[in-house]
């Protein structure tokens, strides 16, 4: 027995010696400027941007793990790659000392819930009553948790389910891998190579918005002067397709861009955080969520229809201006034309009724469902029975039809 104990003791001590010789010891205890221990910094030299500087924030407040350990397996236990993922965001971006008010708002926002899309599909397909609104179960979070499915929901899961904030970044194949990621769906841009870390920014570039906002109303495309063509790249030019393609293979043609785009403005120059990240209320449709109107800036002193201030609009030298978030250029905000716009006969006209001379329209959209095939469920990233196919035809770039909504004359666009 004694020999066995000695043998075991020697083996254990030898093992400890071997482990000690093999392991990498830190030269010192690494701390952030606030004195919080952050041993991740002993190995990692990635450098995020100034706001989230490694010396100030460290790594673990965002990426979790155990910052008190040096051994890789122990230090990386419980680590997450994307802190913006809505599944963990209360522990990361939304932690009490950082952005605690945001997770609750964002999770209620339409970009996270997709409530409007889900609710409309269910209603149009007759799966819920016409007057069924404000249903908590019409949300991506609910579908993810319950796995609930139906014909309308199957359509959503397979054709629409990649454009929401619950989508795990990098989960889906091909170009879809770029979508989603919670906070980082909008706030992440590539950083300099030497930084080895992406940049988190409040200056949301246009391409981050257009990654999702390029279907249905196609506002992200039209804004930049791109028209989604019906066709096949014809007419061919010099033996190649005569049209540009988007990342997903759709053909687009160049058309005159929006005047705001030409002026160097992007979506977040006008759209405020309460619209994009939510104001804490659970809306059904985006028209309930969107606050800015043309008149908020043009003759409206930078106040949205819900009474909130547009941050980039201010009065300088007696004039109302909007300062471009990327360009820094100060754009004078012209009030509506006192004769054309304010004339009594035009009183009921929306701005778009006159200022949108051409709008992309799709008269021939239809859908085919083949129960024999399989297709990727974008929420679960699994192939399930039943495949949907969208067809587009009779796409036009034309003057829009005018119609009356409430008391206002608006443009009516099919597709």
């Amino acid at each position, binding site marked *: 027995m*004694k020999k066995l*104990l*000695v043998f*075991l*003791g020697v083996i*254990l*001590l030898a*093992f*400890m010696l071997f*482990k*000690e010789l093999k392991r990498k*010891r*830190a*030269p*010192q*205890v690494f*701390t952030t400027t606030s*004195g*919080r*221990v952050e*041993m991740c910094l*002993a190995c990692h030299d990635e450098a995020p941007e100034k706001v989230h500087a490694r010396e100030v924030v460290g790594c*673990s407040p965002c990426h*979790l793990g*155990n*910052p*008190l*350990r*040096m051994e890789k397996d*122990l230090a990386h236990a419980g680590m997450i790659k994307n802190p913006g993922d809505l599944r963990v965001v*209360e*522990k990361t971006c939304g*932690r*009490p*000392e950082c952005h605690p008010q945001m997770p609750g708002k964002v999770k209620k926002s339409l970009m996270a819930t997709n409530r409007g899309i889900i609710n409309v599909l269910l209603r149009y397909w007759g799966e819920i009553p016409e007057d069924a609104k404000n249903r908590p179960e019409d949300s991506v979070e609910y579908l993810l948790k319950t796995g609930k499915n139906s014909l309308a929901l199957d359509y959503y899961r397979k054709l629409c389910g990649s454009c929401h904030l619950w989508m795990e970044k990098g989960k889906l194949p091909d170009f879809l891998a770029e979508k989603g990621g919670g906070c980082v769906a909008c706030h992440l841009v590539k950083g300099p190579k030497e930084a080895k870390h992406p940049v988190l920014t409040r200056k949301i570039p246009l391409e981050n918005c257009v990654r999702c906002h390029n279907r249905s109303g196609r506002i992200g495309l039209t804004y930049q002067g791109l028209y989604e063509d019906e066709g096949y790249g014809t007419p061919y030019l010099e033996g190649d397709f005569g049209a540009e393609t988007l990342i997903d293979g759709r053909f687009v043609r160049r058309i005159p861009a929006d005047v705001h785009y030409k002026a160097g403005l992007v979506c977040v120059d006008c759209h405020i955080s309460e619209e994009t990240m939510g104001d804490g209320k659970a809306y059904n449709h985006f028209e309930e969520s969107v606050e800015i109107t043309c008149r908020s800036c043009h003759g409206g002193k930078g106040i949205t229809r819900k009474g909130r201030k547009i941050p980039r609009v201010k009065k300088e030298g007696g004039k109302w201006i909007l300062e471009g978030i990327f360009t820094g250029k100060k754009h004078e905000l012209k009030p509506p034309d006192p004769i054309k716009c304010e004339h009594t006969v035009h009183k009921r006209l929306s701005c778009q009724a006159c200022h949108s001379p051409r709008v992309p329209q799709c008269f021939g959209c239809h859908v085919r469902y083949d129960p024999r095939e399989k297709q990727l469920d974008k929420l679960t990233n699994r192939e399930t029975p039943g495949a949907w196919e969208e067809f587009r035809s009779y796409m036009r770039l034309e003057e829009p039809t005018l119609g009356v909504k409430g008391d206002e004359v608006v443009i009516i666009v099919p597709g």
Partner: protein
Amino acid sequence: MNSRVNSFIAWAAANSFLLALISGVFLAFPFRVEMPLISTVGIEGVLPFGDFVRGLHFYTGQLAFLFLLLHIVYSLRARSFERKSWFSWSLLVATFPLTVFALFSGYVVRNDEIGSSAGHIAESLLLEVPLIGNFLNHLLMAVSKEGVHRVYAAHFCISFLLFIGLCGWHFNLKRLKIWDLVYVALVAMILTVFYPPLLRPFEPDLSVLGPWFFVGIQELLRHLPPFWAGVVFPSIPVAALWAYKKYSKLAGIILVAWHVFYFFLSLVGFSR
């Protein structure tokens, strides 16, 4: 050592305690009481064999407590207390809460999330003790005002005084067998190698649990006022142990019922 008790367990408790003291001395040199967590991480991550020595200290402390519990059970069953005077028995019973404090304060001084939270809870509970609460807090804890200075001093002093006191009148250190010591050291080494004790970083989810033996009280604090959950309730087994000498049957029932209830409380606490 009384021959009617299980000598292996009794000596295992003493040996574990001795090893915890020896490893603690090694840790005391690099430990900086003004920056407890930083120096603890430094011991683990910077000093060669630092995590090994800290693991040994942690596990020998745990083993000392667990063997002491077993030793108490065997001693009560063997009725070894009958040969002790009331004074001697009272002193012996008093060593039990002191041992628990030595173990508990070890968690507090490392000042990670578990230790820091445990320290603040203990401070609040000490202040609930009638009349002497404030004095006890200033003597042993006072973490909110003075960090871990006092609790570290208490951890150090109580551990050594306890061991010296026990050596003096409860067991004879000369009778300590080196192989028993080796056996306990090996158990602690195996645990250190395969289950290294982890410091818990501060996290924002407020779901922190205290040391494993404290979780039951933590759970009870959710349901009862601090005085009842944190002062009266933990005093019950100590009082029952003391009274066991005269009212064995009743005290035995109370001790068993308390521990069953505490086990249940701990289970609920851990399942949260």
